[in-house]
């Protein structure tokens, strides 16, 4: 009788242990699986954000194309953009973004000076398009190039800037 009880107890323990083991393995696999999913979701989000800013920076309205030597990647023609902001209303809904701002990072200028035709290029913020302040914000480094004059001659001046794009969350 005692022996049989011990046997039953042994089996019970064994079953419990096996169940516990499989539950733990299951949890481990679930965590691994969800971490992979999360990682790919973040990567996709990053790619989309990069693509949005890169797409805009390399679009004909912004891109340097071949005005500053060879074709540059992520290069924004500041002279072109400063003229574009006069007509930004015509681009309502065209870029798929609610705000497009280019902020000069280097060389640094004291304070925040919004660019207009009267103060350009002595400014550091170009508000290309501004619809509202809501939505997610993505940004990326871009080269901000313009034609600068020195001693009566023109040369290419490229500076460091960050292009921020806000888009409405759906």
């Amino acid at each position, binding site marked *: 009788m005692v022996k049989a009880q*011990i046997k039953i107890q042994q089996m019970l323990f064994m079953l419990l242990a096996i169940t516990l083991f499989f539950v733990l393995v299951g949890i481990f696999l679930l965590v691994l699986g969800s*971490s992979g999913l999360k990682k790919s979701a973040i990567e996709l989000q990053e790619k989309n954000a990069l693509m949005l800013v890169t797409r805009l920076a390399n679009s004909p309205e912004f891109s340097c194309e071949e005005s500053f030597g060879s074709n540059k990647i*992520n290069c924004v023609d500041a002279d072109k953009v400063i003229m574009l902001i006069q007509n930004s209303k015509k681009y309502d809904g065209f870029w798929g973004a609610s705000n497009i701002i280019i902020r000069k990072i*280097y060389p*640094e200028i004291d304070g925040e000076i919004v660019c207009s035709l009267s103060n350009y290029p002595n400014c550091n913020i170009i508000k290309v398009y501004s619809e509202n302040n809501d939505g997610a914000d993505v940004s*990326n480094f871009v080269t901000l190039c313009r034609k600068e004059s020195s001693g009566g001659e023109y040369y290419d001046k490229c*500076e460091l*800037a960050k292009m921020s794009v806000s888009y409405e969350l759906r």
Partner: protein
Amino acid sequence: MINKKGQKQKLRIFSAIRGKSGQEEFVGFGLIMIVVAVVLLIFVGFALKKNSNAELVESYEVESFIQTMLQYTTDCEDNLEFLSVQKLIFDCRENEKCLDGRNTCNVLNETLEKIIDASWNVETGSLVKGYELIVLDESVEMIKIQKGNSTNNYKGSKQIFSKGSNTIEIIFTTSY
């Protein structure tokens, strides 16, 4: 009669031994289970920790930063134009001087330091804890700029470009 008694005693001893070994088996099995459970929990813990850190890192920014930095126009002029950082690296390699007599390597170092300092804030409380820029000329260290702390959670990018047979590597890493 004596034989029967002896046999009974022997049986008792055997069953006692068997019972003891059974208990030992239980203890051993229990110990194995505990070890397996602890190992699994450690794995789960690591997986969760790794996850929370990955969200903060945005590698594309680092990649774009190197590209943009290389295109920046410095105030060092040669006979033709104001040099970009990329051209200045090659001039520095050949120990050239700017038109105003400054050493190209000094200008390069100074410009790179200022650019990175303006672009990546490593002050206390900011997301980025530190950065490191290494410029390699044929795998030999040419420039190294470092600020802040280096952590295990980092993201970096490498860009290789060449002029003639010379290859320059730029490695930029940010710690979070």
